[in-house]
């Protein structure tokens, strides 16, 4: 029975062996492609579904937010702070030397040109995800109660464990009194 053992196939000459090898490799390769193609839907199904994506832009009416006031809106399940800053807050934010900042960024870079009074940022502490409290802390900005991070009136990190400034979401002014986040 030795001729029929799987180890005996080389005895049939190298030409045959090559074809068998090609076949074998091609078949296993195709099988691997099949598995690969099947795995993608299994992974992709965990990405945001169409209805979740559809909610991913939020329009905010600014006309009712008085100077010195702010509101929190929900965008993609996260709080977004929309603040109508006072002259004093803007001035403070602009005067901070970049060298003093942990995550150096000018105030200009964090607002839209000509609309300095409007600060729009994702209200999620860059430390471990708590929501900072407004108009608190040592820098006229926000204070995160979880582990004591202080953010200034431009939402930049000044003290405490958080590494980065509060992030600015993608948004645009649809009119002077209306923005669209996302």
């Amino acid at each position, binding site marked *: 029975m030795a*001729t*029929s053992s*799987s180890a*005996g196939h080389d005895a049939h000459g190298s030409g045959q062996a090559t074809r068998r090898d090609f*076949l*074998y490799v091609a078949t296993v390769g195709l*099988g691997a492609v*099949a598995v690969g*193609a099947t795995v993608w839907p299994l992974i992709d199904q965990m990405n945001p579904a169409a209805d979740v994506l*559809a909610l991913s832009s939020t329009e905010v009416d600014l006309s009712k937010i008085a100077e010195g006031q702010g509101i929190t809106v929900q965008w993609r399940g996260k709080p977004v702070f929309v603040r109508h800053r006072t002259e004093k807050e803007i001035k403070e934010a602009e005067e901070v030397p970049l060298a003093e900042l942990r995550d150096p960024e000018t105030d200009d870079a964090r607002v839209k040109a000509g609309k300095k009074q409007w600060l729009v940022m994702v209200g999620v502490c860059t430390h471990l995800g708590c929501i900072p409290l407004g108009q608190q802390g040592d820098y006229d900005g926000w204070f995160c109660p979880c582990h004591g991070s202080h953010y200034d009136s431009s939402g930049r990190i000044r003290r405490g464990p958080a590494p980065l400034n509060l992030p600015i979401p993608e948004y645009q002014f649809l009119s002077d009194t209306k923005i669209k986040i996302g």
Partner: protein
Amino acid sequence: MSPFKIGAAALLALGLGAGVAQASEGAHMEKLDWSFNGAFGTFDRAALQRGYQVYKEVCASCHSMKYLSYRNLQDIGFSEAEVKALAAQYEVPALDEVGDPTTAKAKPSDRFHSPFPNELAARAANGGALPPDLSLMGKARVGGPDYIHALLTGYHEAPAGFVLPEGKEYNAVFPGNAIGMPKPLSDDQVTYADGTKASLEQMSRDVSTFLMWAAEPKLEDRKRAGVKVMGFLGLLTIFTFLTYRKVRRKVQGH
């Protein structure tokens, strides 16, 4: 709602159920050659848009489509701006600044506006019959789009001797033949935006196409993927067969 009303609705529902149970004969239903039939089938966008117009202008006054959102209409060829404008024609419940209930313009992400706030209101406005939700109608009846088309074109004079209950009309394919929905479509019921002549036949086909899409919006994706998968599996089958044959010759000697 008074317990009496609820009880009456329940009895009615039971009665309707029994009516359906009696009537399974069903008349001849023409099998149409839909563009979405077959392995390579696709939806005709123009027909879908016309079908939506029929739904919106005629059916939507009684039938909800609660599993569809306005944003879905982008799939049938409306632009983002058009969808936004379409949605804005409807009002959805909202709260004002002081928390009182009010309404706001619907957004593309909102579900289709329903004509009635709840089932009892729907029944009350329709002589006790409940106009079913149409989101899944393309799949929820034997025959699917063929059935919908046959139903819409199936209103005739009741044959002699057929006793039509009060408030019902005769329909050739509806189970039991006595339908609570008044004949919804007749020639030129709508004026098509694309200028197509709105005959009864045309509107029935268009709205059936639209309802099939609404029930199975992933039909095109599915068939396209299926053709690829089949081709690939065919190749895989050839290769696994050749490999098997090769191994068999070694191991079995034949």
